């Protein structure tokens, strides 16, 4: 068959676009090179729902982040994506940084965000008593929030699928035959994507390929931009550190990038990072000794007490930095091709707004993207967040289904019921990491010492074995 639209890349941006398009009468394919959705840049970011206060005013990014903040906030309410509205504070450590704060406040206002407030050192320590001595003042950004990036991606992709989009995982696009637009025969005139699992024909193609977006763009004959993978390494600290970090602690941005932040995570941990290192290898998601040392030094300067706690996890994510200061979203009517490039870490927040923008562009180009009448309700996602009630805490739920009373992963308190649900879901995990992103199982301080074998058995059997499920 020929799809009306093929969206390449099932990260947050691609999934949001596919979801938006699948809400119309159009036939949609969501094409993903990896075995799971959200397995590239989307799985390893700092998981902050941004107000957009520090974007460059007037850019597309500024507009879409501000819009996405509201869209995703509402969508999170509807689907149960965990969000914790902690707020943030930028901390100035010297005169130079202190002098920057009024300008940042003005910039926020130029971006349409008016809730920022400059605070003195006492107020900073009132907000974060565990902060190292020497803070001079700060800027409060009460609207910044933490969010579950994994659930966001899964919700959008699940929703796309329930609306009728075909999710084609393990389909890596290797080359493209660009269609000429004629309607002579079924696939003639359509663009054909030659993938590792066969050809996919589509009238329109949306490139949301993240780290691979420039290479795919080149397959359409363009030479517009280059993606530079920017590696960000992070430490996740033990939950016992969480009381030290009641809100997001941001550095004052400098010419050397945004710097290292300390943030609570939606799972009740504390995150320190990221580093920023430009690479050439688009698959280099390993961590490094130099990165660890850098983070440890930063941590010591920011919050020495934090380093007394255990490190639960470390990971590295790649951000799809491009050689331009803004998102690059462009529709080519001749090729019936839309590029969605340069969506850096803000894409978590802006994804739904990017989708809305792409749908507008396609509508202008003559594609009928208007919503159809019989849309299914948005999916209700399992709660992975500490702010809400988790199944192991839910009396009524355990009474109705004892599987929610059997804790399999002790550190993260993941129950047999949740693992069962993830394995039986509309979008089941392809591997252990996929199960971890859907349930938090094995993500805790023991990293599988207690539950690793049991969780592996669940994955391999595609269900929770009796001896793991208990006698409930």
């Amino acid at each position: 068959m020929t799809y009306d639209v093929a969206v390449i890349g099932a990260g947050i941006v691609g999934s949001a676009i596919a979801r938006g398009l699948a809400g119309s009468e159009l036939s949609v394919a969501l094409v993903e090179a990896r075995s799971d959705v959200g397995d590239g840049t989307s799985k390893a970011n700092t998981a902050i729902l941004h107000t957009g206060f520090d974007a460059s005013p007037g850019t597309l990014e500024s507009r879409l982040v501000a819009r996405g903040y509201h869209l995703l906030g509402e969508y999170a309410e509807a689907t149960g994506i965990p969000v914790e509205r902690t707020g943030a504070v930028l901390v100035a450590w010297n005169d130079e940084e202190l002098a920057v704060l009024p300008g940042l406040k003005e910039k926020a206002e130029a971006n349409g965000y008016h809730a920022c407030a400059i605070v003195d050192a006492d107020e900073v320590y009132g907000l974060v008593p565990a902060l190292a001595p020497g803070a001079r003042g700060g800027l409060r950004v009460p609207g910044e929030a933490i969010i579950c990036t994994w659930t966001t991606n899964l919700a959008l992709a699940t929703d796309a699928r329930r609306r009728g989009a075909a999710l084609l995982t393990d389909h890596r696009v290797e080359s493209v035959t660009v269609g000429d637009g004629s309607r002579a025969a079924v696939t003639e005139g359509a663009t054909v994507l030659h993938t590792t699992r066969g050809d996919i024909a589509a009238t329109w193609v949306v490139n949301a390929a993240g780290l691979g977006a420039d290479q795919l763009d080149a397959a359409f004959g363009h030479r517009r931009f280059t993606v530079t993978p920017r590696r960000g390494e992070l430490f996740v600290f033990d939950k016992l550190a969480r009381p030290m970090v009641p809100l997001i602690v941001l550095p004052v941005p400098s010419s050397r990038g945004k710097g290292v932040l300390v943030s609570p995570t939606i799972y009740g941990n504390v995150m320190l990072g990221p580093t920023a290192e430009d690479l050439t290898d688009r698959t280099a998601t390993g961590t490094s000794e130099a990165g660890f040392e850098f983070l440890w030094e930063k941590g010591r300067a920011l919050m020495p007490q934090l380093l007394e706690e255990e490190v639960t996890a470390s990971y590295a994510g790649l951000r799809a930095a491009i050689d331009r200061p803004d998102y690059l979203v462009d529709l080519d009517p001749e090729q019936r091709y839309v590029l969605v490039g340069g969506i850096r870490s803000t894409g978590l927040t802006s994804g739904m707004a990017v989708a809305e923008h792409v749908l507008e562009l396609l509508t202008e180009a003559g594609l009928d993207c208007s919503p159809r009448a019989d849309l299914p309700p948005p999916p209700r996602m399992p709660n992975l967040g500490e702010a809400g009630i988790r199944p192991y805490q839910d009396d009524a739920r355990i009474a109705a289904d004892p599987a929610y009373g059997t804790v399999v992963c002790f550190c993260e308190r993941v129950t047999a019921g949740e693992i069962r649900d993830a394995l039986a879901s509309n979008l089941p995990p392809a591997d252990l990491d996929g199960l971890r992103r859907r349930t938090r199982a094995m993500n805790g301080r023991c990293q599988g010492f207690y539950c690793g074998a049991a969780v592996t058995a669940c994955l391999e059997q595609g269900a929770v074995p009796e001896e793991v499920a208990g006698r409930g």
Partner: protein
Amino acid sequence: MAEDRHVAVLVVGGGPSGLACAASLAGSCEVLVVEREQRAGGIPRHSDHTGYGLRDRRRLMRGPAYAEAWRTAALDAGAELLEGAMVTGWTGDREVSVTSPAGRFRVGADAVVLATGVRERPRSARRIPGDRPDGVLTTGQLQNLVHLRHHEVGHAAVVVGGELVSWSAVLTLREAGCRTVAMVTPYAKAEAYALFRWAGRAALRVPVVGHSDVVRIEGRVRVRSVVVRDRATGVETTVACDTVVTTGDWIPDHELARSRGLELDPGTRGPAVDAALRTDAPGVFAVGNLLHPADTADVAALDGAHVVAAVRDWLDRGGTRRGVRIAAEPPLRWVSPQYVEPGGEPPARERLLSWTDTLVRRPVVEALQDGRVVGRCRTWWPAAPGRVFRIPSGILDDVDATRGEVTVRLRS
């Protein structure tokens, strides 16, 4: 929440120390053991090799049989055992909330004994950088996979660490058909016991790489190799392998102890207790490797029997923690118990437990109070990294209850 329950003694954790405590107490009062695994028994459940039971059960047993023996002993003594149920937090001074398939409920007790055990630091907590491939495990996960689930592991493993448990990992790997290509330890030698050093070389044929660290793990999907760096020379060597087992480097599973606000020892990271195993919270006790990470299972179980006197005393008269603070001086990392009462009851087996970071073959141990040596002894066993160093508690006999902190130190 479902209806509350009240028991005389609540034991949190059904490993050797918790079960031994229950077995010793259940004859005289109502004891409830809450265990989050589906079957009680603790770590020996999945350590399917010999070496268990010598000091407490007076016979040499394999881990699973040993675990089962303590489980049976607790049940036979009349203790109630709630398996597959997890204590998730405190709802009062001696009251906890429990999640189980039968629902959520609160358990209040006259006395609470924490026996929550230890875990190994995984790769992340050791901050070993590199790729994140499959095939990187702790000994606990390895033994769960091999002994409880008969799962395959790789063919060539690097074992990180040189503690007793590291050799336990080697045995498990061998049983699973996986060769240990190197044991990498920061210490000069693969410490633990001379017996293991000899056996390691001769029988298990494990090449021990001393004075070194694993500084990088490589492999995108499955482990391909590790990079080992010599601490003295800085020379790096790549070792091909498909499995990495991070062993030992124990940390107490102390979440409940911390959330209850108990005084913790900075060295052990477990509760600071007196010789009778009382914590600073009245009616809250702690036993086993939560206190001394990590001694052998039989020593943990003997704690379980030892705490009984203090629990009974609390139930009868309300005794609270007492004694002079005992601290460790490097190279001793910690000493347990942390409070000892001069002239009072001695600690379990009349031993102070401690951990050393350097090898002292013929150690002299000194106790200092206010800068003055108040006790000294020579042990006929070495102080070796990788296992607990046991000190006769008699060195504290002349401590003055009215004076300050006592420091325990090593001399060669």
